[in-house]
């Protein structure tokens, strides 16, 4: 355990600390972020009206739309010059959601990632192979600095080039693998193809995140690699990885409640669900300086268990998310919204808006194919020009989404439409099952 002085607080102590920090956060956000002042003013609530944790229900929600409207820095409580780092995640349109951290925020984040890893049994003697992308994505740098703080030996391999990943795993003998669960499965299959025996693989622990995965996927991961596979959760808007993580009992992810206040609401009514029921996870940050976030709607559907865990922690355990309350897709760890695809297509004259994206798994990796109904504007008699048009569409998608999609042209009226409404996403991956 990395910070037992916090991680072992009992419910009463947790809630006492939460209230104190919530009051401080609401006041801080009200005074320093115009968007929050306007939000609170609109419901005639002042920071001093927050007298109990329950009073949080009086505050308006925050969504990705708020980040979009206040792009890039409007949600920040401090001037960007006072910050230490910027990260970003996908926005619902072409513009990313920009997030920022002060030195202290980065310090807290590293603490929480260190907790996340220690929770799964990782320690200072471990050698960690990080196969998350390094860049604006919070996964790479987030895990990197947290694991350094824990004292582990970090190998910042980054993502891609599976052949090299395998060589480094075999040569440098890491004991911990950090990646998306789908990429870990792909690595496992590649190791098998190379004829490598599981007994010759040094890995013992897998810290898998950045995309939802099922218990079935855990079984498969633990069968195909000599690891115990641990889930962790986080999102850039509230921090990044390190919001919650599984302990060795693998029975829900402990929310680090001294830094985050969580609620579960009905995504339709936005009212709280009964204790222990499934609903949308809503997170309020309790210690963030650069970017305090109040009642952020994660759109992830999960439930909370506040009973004491066998590991000794009282910190609430959230179950693996079982779905989303919006249409966001997570493709190879990257968040993608249908509206982004629409924007990319809109940028190319004549393409139109008849499309469908099909998500599949191929050798454990996500395969995304975008089917676009052809029309006179994008149909050419010459193959050369037809290919150029396809390349143009692919390029625009890559620019806006940050990932590559297969693009296929199909005949008009050939895409499925359910009750007149176009079905934009067909997900055959079964990631939540």
């Amino acid at each position: 355990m990395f910070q037992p002085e916090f991680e072992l607080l009992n419910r009463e102590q947790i809630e006492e600390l939460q209230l104190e920090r919530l009051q401080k956060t609401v006041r801080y956000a009200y005074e320093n972020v115009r968007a929050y002042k306007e939000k609170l003013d609109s419901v005639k609530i002042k920071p001093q009206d927050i007298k109990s944790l329950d009073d949080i229900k009086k505050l308006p929600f925050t969504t990705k739309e708020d980040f979009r409207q206040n792009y890039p820095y409007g949600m920040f409580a401090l001037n960007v010059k006072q910050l230490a780092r910027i990260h970003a995640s996908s926005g619902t349109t072409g513009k990313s959601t920009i997030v920022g951290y002060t030195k202290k925020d980065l310090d807290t984040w590293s603490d929480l990632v260190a907790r996340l890893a220690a929770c799964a049994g990782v320690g200072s003697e471990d050698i960690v192979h990080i196969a998350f992308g390094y860049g604006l994505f919070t996964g790479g740098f987030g895990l990197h600095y947290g694991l350094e703080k824990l004292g582990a030996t970090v190998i910042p391999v980054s993502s891609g080039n599976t052949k090299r990943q395998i060589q480094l795993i075999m040569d440098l003998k890491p004991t911990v693998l950090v990646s998306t669960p789908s990429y870990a499965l792909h690595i496992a299959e590649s190791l098998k193809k190379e004829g490598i025996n599981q007994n010759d693989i040094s890995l013992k622990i897998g810290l898998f995140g950045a995309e939802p995965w099922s218990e079935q996927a855990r079984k498969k991961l633990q069968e195909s690699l000599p690891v115990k596979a641990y889930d962790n959760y986080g999102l850039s808007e509230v921090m990044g990885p390190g919001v919650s993580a599984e302990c060795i009992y693998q029975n829900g992810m402990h929310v680090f409640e001294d830094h985050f206040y969580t609620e579960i609401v009905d995504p339709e009514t936005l009212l709280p669900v009964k204790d222990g029921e499934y609903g949308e996870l809503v997170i309020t940050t309790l210690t963030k300086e650069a970017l305090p976030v109040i009642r952020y709607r994660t759109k992830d559907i999960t439930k909370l268990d506040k009973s004491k865990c066998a590991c000794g922690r009282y910190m609430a355990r959230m179950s693996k998310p079982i779905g989303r309350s919006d249409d966001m897709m997570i493709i190879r760890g990257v968040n993608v919204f249908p509206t982004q695809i629409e924007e990319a297509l809109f940028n190319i004259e004549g393409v139109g808006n008849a499309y469908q994206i099909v998500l599949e798994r191929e050798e454990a990796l996500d395969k995304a194919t975008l089917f676009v109904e052809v029309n006179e504007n994008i149909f050419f008699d010459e193959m050369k020009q037809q290919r150029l048009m396809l390349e143009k569409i692919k390029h625009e998608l890559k620019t806006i989404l940050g990932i590559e999609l297969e693009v296929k042209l199909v005949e008009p009226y050939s895409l499925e439409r359910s009750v007149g409404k176009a079905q934009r996403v067909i997900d055959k991956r079964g990631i939540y099952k």
Partner: protein
Amino acid sequence: MNYKIAQISVFIENKKGRFYNVTKILKENNINIRALNLADTNDFGILRFCVDKPEEAYEALKKEHFIVKKNEILAALMDDRPGGLMDLLEIVNEADLNIEYVYTFVNAKDSHAVILFKFENIDEAYEKLKNKIHFLDQQYFIQN
């Protein structure tokens, strides 16, 4: 003489029965295909053809929601003998013209071999070649 031959191009998905459907629509409209070419990829194909009634073919396919385009190509007569095509291409080569694609057919009724050219610039191609190559007109595709 109208040397520009009307060609119809249709987008077809590589799916069972799509090609057949095109021919079925043409038959139902009593349209005769004189020459045909299919350029295909893994996913889709571009079907190009010349018919006796191009306007009707275009409208009929459009009505059935096919993505159709009309374009113009040149049709040259060549000798149906070894080297016939080579002689013709030599003339085209010397004229330094860019060819997008070609396809050929042999007319069973008059035993002539015909080669269809899609040039990048049809007018330029015609001007450069008209004195050296025997081009056919649209009439040839209607009567024969």
